[in-house]
């Protein structure tokens, strides 16, 4: 079988432990929570840390708590817990959906939401064994200096593949980071960078401790995921839509796209078109057409990239129809309006 590389494992009992270990060992160290992303990656030598700082023993990281009218979810909370938590399901249904669609039941029992938010970007030239990558020629994300998807490109286009990231983005969530210099809370949009290698806007030695969800008043949300199979597969397109309604008129809206770039992408312009409108089939169709614009998939995941782009429009339409209580497809504006 594929073997893990040798490393030293430092179990933390507190966030303070973890921060200390991380700053002690600098770039030799990595954090590990459920390990469902990191360990397979280690087997393929996508990372070769000398030290792993374990978060599983940090009690304070797990749990869902009400805070300031919203919810705070500890980074160590398992995806199964997030998907089944009654408050999450009631107030942030898209988040429960997304967490419940991650990989498989076994991995959701081990995998944490913190790990999901920080999950490595993916590319089918990169998520391969060391021998395979050597055979095709290493790329700049690990061991090499070119991009095999976009030769000539100075950057890596590996794909942001978290299911919860676009949902948290659309919900306006923030994250709490604790590092050697103390703690800070930043909007989730600031956690991500449009770069396949340095995809996180946080320092290596900062631990993500909480996900902070704003009050849900009036917001409705939905998440749709494109993948080949109903389980296991990472998203190759995730569409997260959140809409605040006043009666049947849209007051505020956010559309975030996952897995079509190195970071979640927001369809700001399309969302703006919704404001002040009723969610009719006509309006939804118009918005969906626009929403695909920031979707920039390349040929480095399952399915063809033109297909993923095409599906962005369909999925945005369907997510909005879901929120509006309309049938997934079909019908005409006259009939339903």
């Amino acid at each position, binding site marked *: 079988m594929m073997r893990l590389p*040798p490393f030293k494992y430092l179990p933390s009992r507190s966030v303070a432990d973890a921060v200390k270990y991380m700053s002690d060992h600098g770039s030799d160290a990595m954090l590990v929570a459920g390990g469902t992303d990191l360990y397979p990656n280690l087997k393929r030598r996508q990372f070769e840390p000398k030290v792993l700082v374990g978060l599983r023993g940090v009690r304070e990281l797990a749990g869902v708590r009400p805070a300031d009218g919203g919810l705070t979810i500890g980074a160590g909370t398992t995806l199964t817990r997030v998907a089944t938590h009654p408050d999450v399901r009631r107030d942030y249904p898209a988040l429960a959906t997304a967490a419940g669609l991650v990989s498989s039941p076994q991995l959701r029992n081990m995998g944490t939401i913190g790990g999901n938010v920080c999950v490595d970007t993916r590319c*089918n030239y990169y998520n391969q064994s060391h021998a395979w990558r050597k055979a095709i020629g290493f790329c700049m994300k690990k061991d090499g200096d070119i991009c095999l998807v976009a030769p000539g490109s100075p950057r890596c286009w590996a794909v942001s593949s978290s299911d919860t990231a676009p949902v948290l983005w659309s919900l306006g969530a923030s994250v709490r980071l604790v590092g050697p210099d103390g703690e800070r809370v930043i909007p989730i949009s600031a956690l991500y960078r449009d770069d396949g290698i340095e995809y996180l806007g946080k320092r290596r030695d900062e631990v993500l401790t909480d996900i902070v969800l704003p009050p849900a008043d009036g917001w409705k949300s939905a998440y749709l995921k494109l993948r080949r199979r109903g389980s296991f597969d990472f998203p190759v397109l995730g569409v997260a839509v959140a809409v605040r309604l006043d009666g049947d008129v849209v007051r505020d809206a956010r559309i975030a796209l996952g897995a079509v770039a190195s970071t979640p992408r927001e369809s700001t312009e399309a969302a703006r078109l919704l404001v002040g409108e009723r969610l009719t089939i006509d309006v939804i169709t118009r918005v969906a057409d626009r929403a695909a614009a920031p979707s920039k998939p390349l040929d480095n995941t399952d399915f063809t990239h033109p297909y993923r782009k095409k599906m962005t429009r369909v999925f945005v339409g369907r997510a909005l129809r879901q929120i509006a209580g309309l049938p997934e*497809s*079909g019908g005409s504006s006259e009939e339903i309006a």
Partner: protein
Amino acid sequence: MTNEAFSVIGQPLPKIDAWGKVTGETRYADDLFLPRMAYAKLLRSQHPHARITRIDTTRAKALPGVFAVITGHDLPPVKFGILPVSQDEDALCRDKVRMVGDAVAAVAAIDEETAERACELIEVGYEPLRPLMSIEESLAHPEVRIHEYGDGPNVHKMVALQFGDVDAAFASSHLVREDVFFFEGNTHLPMEQHAAVAHATADGKLTLWSSTQTPHYVHRLLTKILDMPGPHIRVIATPVGGGFGGKLDPFAHEIAACRLSQLCGRPVKIALTREEVFYVHRGRHPVLMWLKTGFTRDGDITASHIRTWLDGGAYGSYGVASTFYTGVINPVTYKMPVYKFEGARIFTNKPPCGPKRGHGTPQPRFALECQLDKAAEQLGLDPADMRRRIVAEPFTKTANHLTITTIGLRECFDRVVEACGWRDKRAQFPRDNARPNAPAKKKGIGIAGSAYMTGAGTAIYWNSMPHSGVIVRADRSGGVAVLCGATDIGQGSDSILAYLVAEVLGIDPKDIRVHAADTDLTPVDLGSYSSRVTLMCGVAAIQAAGKLRQAIFDAVAKKLEVGADALAARDRKVGVADDWEKAVTFAQAAELGEAMHGVLAFAGSYAPPKRAGKYKGGGVGPSPCYSYSASAVEVTVDEETGEVHLDDIWIAHDVGRALNPLLVEGQVEGSVYMGIGEALMEGQIFRKGLHKQPSMLDYKSPTTLETPEIHTTLVETDDPEGPFGAKEAGQGPLLPVIPAIANAIYHAVGVRIDEVPISPEMVLKGLELKRQGKPARIGREKLPLMHWKDPLAVESAFGQPAEDVAVRPFGDAGPAGKK
């Protein structure tokens, strides 16, 4: 014979190894641990095609913890291959690598990590050659040769056979269709990755435990590859965690483990990673097909002509047989008075293809069943009715000289048509789909039929010995041991042996211990392939058990002072039916038997009827009997996403007799599941000379969520060739599912996809063509330029009566078989 006449046969019993499997007790090859065992790894080529200029193992050998390092030069300089006609493999490549994944060196070390590190220290010099990654590329570059042998540059094998005058028949047909189809290659994906333990002992002998489907062929070939006497090698097949044809060749890892063990004097284990399993492959050939079929106004077939191009990958493997199978089996389903077949297998720099469940037949089956649907539409016939009408006749010969015995295909169609509500749905779905403002999800239903062989009629190497043997041994404990060379690969062959022997002896299957697949202890069985085991071992087992029963009856008859003919065996007793009080227990009966005859051990042997057609190539295709299946599939196609959702699958399978209906249903459902994957997602795709997705995550194979309810009906035709009438069930039911899905998609959205796997992108592209008013067909159009050799012209044997039914060279199942 009705099922009531049996006590064990026909019962839905658990498999005898079920407890071990579900509790984890079963010891697979990778669960074996021997004292002082070393661990081995292979160094594999990272080039698709290259000459090896140099191999230096010095640094690897110097690494602490390394026991032995070998290259091809540490093995006798002989090429090998599973078929005598394709001896083209080196366990460790000496001069040239032909694919990414070819093994070039091997290391045995104290643990896997050390072996892996040592592999990285081996320096191999390569001189890259142009990789040929497709049929077209290999044919277009005759100046680049993957192998030096074959029927032309990069053409491994070419076959051309003609049975009767097809051109004349086409000329007088009402409708002649020519269509091109493509079937992408895919792999077996067994849950258990290949593993082996080799132990060369101080006495100069060698034992190999391996997850293999064919210990006999591995044994035979090891004597050649290792240049050792056969009696000094013992091969034991460990329980196989899924084979599907992927564990049917001798492999580099087995051979390397043997040689390493000889060199380091320790047992050596080797276990492949999932990625390596993709390289070992021997899976479904990608096949490009051109099919021309003539029809009468009523839908009868007048003639059929098929051309197939197989992408064989880097080595021969079973490829010559695979090539024939793309052409020879279609005629056993439907009446085809004249028939022509041309096939060619092309070498490419990819993992070698070979036998996967259905071996060579799912591809032409897909082509034929899709074409029949197109013809039915043109002729204004219902596709189910048309197929029913043209079903071949029982106990006749086909144009290509294959003998059909029983054929339950018409009944299979009837059962499926009735169960799925065919007539209503064929009419209703189009009406629903056409409603204004209907949702994007359209429903459709499609149908297809198929056939598969129950065991190859000839062995891989020519011989006149039994294909299967069984020894049944009983003693005073009342226990019975069954010894047989067959390998249980999950299909339940150990259980079948126990049921058959228990039935004959009137005891419980639990009283029987099956010892299988050990070349030292068990009679030769050729292996678990071509759906041969239940029939061949089964007949041999009934024969052996019948002899044992006769011996016991003789002894009990003497004791009870009755004629042996008056005795019956049931409920673990032997006695006279209407004087059952006096019946003796089976243990007592065995004691009496031992006292009368000495040791109670009896053998049964089986070889198939000799029916090879009397022309060159006539040896591939004949089988004692053929199983038949029909399947209907209901789909929902999303016109906005192109996604195909399978709603329900109905399948009826003519199994001759269900020895255990639970097992047969399991085989049918497993086959259906595998067919779904081939139809909708599985593909061995390559990019820049490499397998694009050698992992379980990225090579998409369906999960339970993609698998719809499968409604299985078993049809029993009580075939005279089979043990108690049984035919195969492990492969055939895969076949109709794939074309039935394609036909259902067409019914739903009017898009013809003549290629599998069918992706959502293809469906959308087809819908786009339809919107533009163009023919809504997706698939290949161009065929490679190929100079076919003149066909061997043989007279059509179509319609001739079957001869030699149930004539077995080593005798019948015996009186017990008739009961």
